């Protein structure tokens, strides 16, 4: 069987000049006629992207902002044409770059379902067939004949997603639409999406919520600078995405030259399990911190080192303390590695506080809010509560009925 989508050498060029001016006025355009120099600059949002999508694939497209994810989706949805290249498709395609496209506040819920459904490409008969299910799924049956402007924003979103959820197209293109609604509704949406993918339909999914990507997608495409950096099974692609973010948010600390106390942190760096410098860690990855301390010969017996994890508001999450003398060698430098066990620190951004001190209260060195790291959700049980403050630690407690 032929693949359902063949993306062949797709490129898309924008003129940067046009990007900066959302629209031109006729006068600008006329005055340009007399200008000799053309100030526009080419920007390739996508550059020779090719891949194949088999029927039933669920593909997560990941990459940083500006990597070309949205442009790719827009080309696939026929909203904007590629500059070169070709896409061959073998199925009805539906794109959800936004939920509730074409919703009008003055129309009732019922009317909006019809309007939105038909804009998404459903036949009227199809919409009417699913109408009760849509309304049930959204949970707005009481207000279905009320103008949309009287709906709460949550109700509007639910109704919008519900329409999309009942699309029967073979290929679905979804852009971040899951990032809506409360935790409960998000869970419902994820469930629905999983149903859809199990039913053998093809999904292309763009999200910044990497947890959702791993939960939903079997394959991944990692875009960087308009090119495919890696393509393959979802977890491999995700890992190479995580590793590529190295050194970006300052996961490395080096003491400044003027700092010449008798005992101080020379260098601190966060590493992943493979001893490669990293600042982003999957929830299920160990974090290794490598510390180099200068001035080891001055170390007294009761000198201690501590590391403290700080959350993004710099509140302390936990502290670990160790007596220094166990690491001593004959050099003036000691290199220590600390392993923070995986699957405990909740997905979020953190930094560390490091201290060298002794019991009598003398502080040799103290550095705060450095080696910033990010824990990324790779499909924890708490994924569905993203955005809810459930704390900085995820613990598997033992629940029993008594």
């Amino acid at each position, binding site marked *: 069987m032929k693949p359902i989508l063949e993306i062949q050498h797709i490129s898309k060029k924008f003129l940067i000049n046009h990007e900066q001016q959302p629209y031109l*006025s006729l006068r600008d355009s006329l005055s340009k006629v007399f200008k000799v120099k053309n100030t526009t600059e080419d920007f390739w949002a996508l550059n020779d992207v090719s891949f194949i999508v088999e029927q039933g694939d669920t593909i997560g497209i990941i990459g940083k902002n500006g990597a070309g994810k949205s442009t790719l989706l827009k080309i696939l949805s026929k909203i*904007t044409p590629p500059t070169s290249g*070709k896409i061959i*498709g073998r199925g*009805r395609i539906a*794109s959800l770059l936004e939920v509730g496209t074409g919703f009008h506040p*003055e*129309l009732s819920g019922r009317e909006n379902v019809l309007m939105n459904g038909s804009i*998404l490409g459903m036949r009227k008969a199809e919409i009417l067939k699913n109408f009760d299910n849509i309304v049930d799924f959204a949970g707005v049956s009481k207000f279905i004949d009320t103008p949309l402007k009287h709906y709460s924003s949550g109700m509007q979103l639910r109704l919008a997603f519900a329409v999309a959820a009942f699309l029967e197209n073979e290929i679905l293109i979804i852009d971040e639409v899951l990032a809506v609604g409360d935790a409960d509704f998000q869970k419902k949406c994820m469930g629905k999406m999983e149903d859809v993918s199990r039913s053998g339909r093809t999904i292309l999914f763009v999200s910044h919520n990497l947890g959702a990507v791993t939960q939903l997608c079997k394959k991944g495409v990692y875009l960087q600078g308009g090119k495919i950096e890696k393509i393959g099974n979802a977890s491999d692609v995700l890992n190479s995405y995580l590793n590529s973010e190295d050194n970006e948010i300052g996961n490395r600390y080096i003491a400044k030259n003027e700092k010449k106390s008798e005992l101080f942190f020379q260098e601190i760096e966060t590493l992943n399990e493979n001893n490669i410098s990293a600042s982003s860690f999957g929830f299920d990855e160990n974090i290794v911190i490598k510390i180099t301390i200068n001035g080891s010969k001055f170390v007294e017996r009761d000198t201690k080192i501590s590391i403290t994890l700080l959350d993004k508001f710099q509140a302390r999450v936990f502290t670990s303390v160790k007596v220094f003398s166990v690491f001593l060698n004959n050099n003036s430098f000691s290199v220590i590695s600390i392993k923070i066990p995986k699957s405990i620190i909740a997905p979020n951004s953190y930094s560390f506080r490091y201290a060298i001190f002794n019991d009598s209260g003398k502080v040799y060195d103290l550095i705060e809010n450095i080696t910033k790291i990010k824990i990324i959700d790779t499909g924890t049980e708490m994924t569905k509560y993203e955005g809810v403050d459930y704390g900085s630690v995820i613990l598997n407690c033992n629940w029993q009925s008594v």
Partner: protein
Amino acid sequence: MSTYFEIKPKGKFSFGLGELWEYRELFYFFTWRDVKVKYKQTVLGFLWAILQPLFMTVVFTLFLGESISQKTQLTIPYPVFALSGMLLWGIFSGGMSNAANSMVSNANIIKKIYFPRLIIPISAILVSLIDFFIASIVFLVVLFFYKVNINYMSILFLPLSVIITCLSAMGIGTTLAAMNIKYRDVKYVIPFLVQGLLFLTPVLYPENISTYPVIKFILKLNPLAGALELMRGIFNGYEISFDTVLISLASSMILFVVGIIYFRKTESYFADLA
């Protein structure tokens, strides 16, 4: 598989009729939405479709009715003459300006979903056509009130009159809609274009108001002139000038084809510019 499709850089020109047919339900939905929304939260509702042409007719009857009637030896009561013109003008002016603004006002949809873009301006014209049919009811009442004699055979020409009007509204509307996406100047041109054209078109005065051949010729070129001729042919004793009708038919078709071609040629980049 029947659902095979290809996405390529802009290729050969086509009118995309097959695709329009495939998405035919959207014509209905866009028109239906705009009609519904248009008179939501108004007290008078659909009465507005009638009040606008009626008001213009009253004003012109009061201030200019007598002098125009005398100067041009009008054989029918001026209010009937003016209202018949205003009804047809309503299709053109409403349709054209709604169509011209339609792409920008639906930019949020254009940027998120694909469907043949022509559906939007065409639906805008269908909306003003519906207003026309509503207002026509009042026109019948006015005809009855003034006891105007109707030439029933000429009623057969009315659909052609409406078609000429729609074609010209679509032609200019789609051109302006496509330009509006790129040059927002169009937004400011529209009201003043509508106002200017009203006076350049024999809507509120008969074609023979001027005796200068040049002005007569310009009035004939106006695609609406023929449409108005056909409209007024329904009054007994009104002589339809068929050469005006033919010229109008030709010029409306030219406007229509040029508009559609320009629109189709530029539409693929609407989402990038909107």
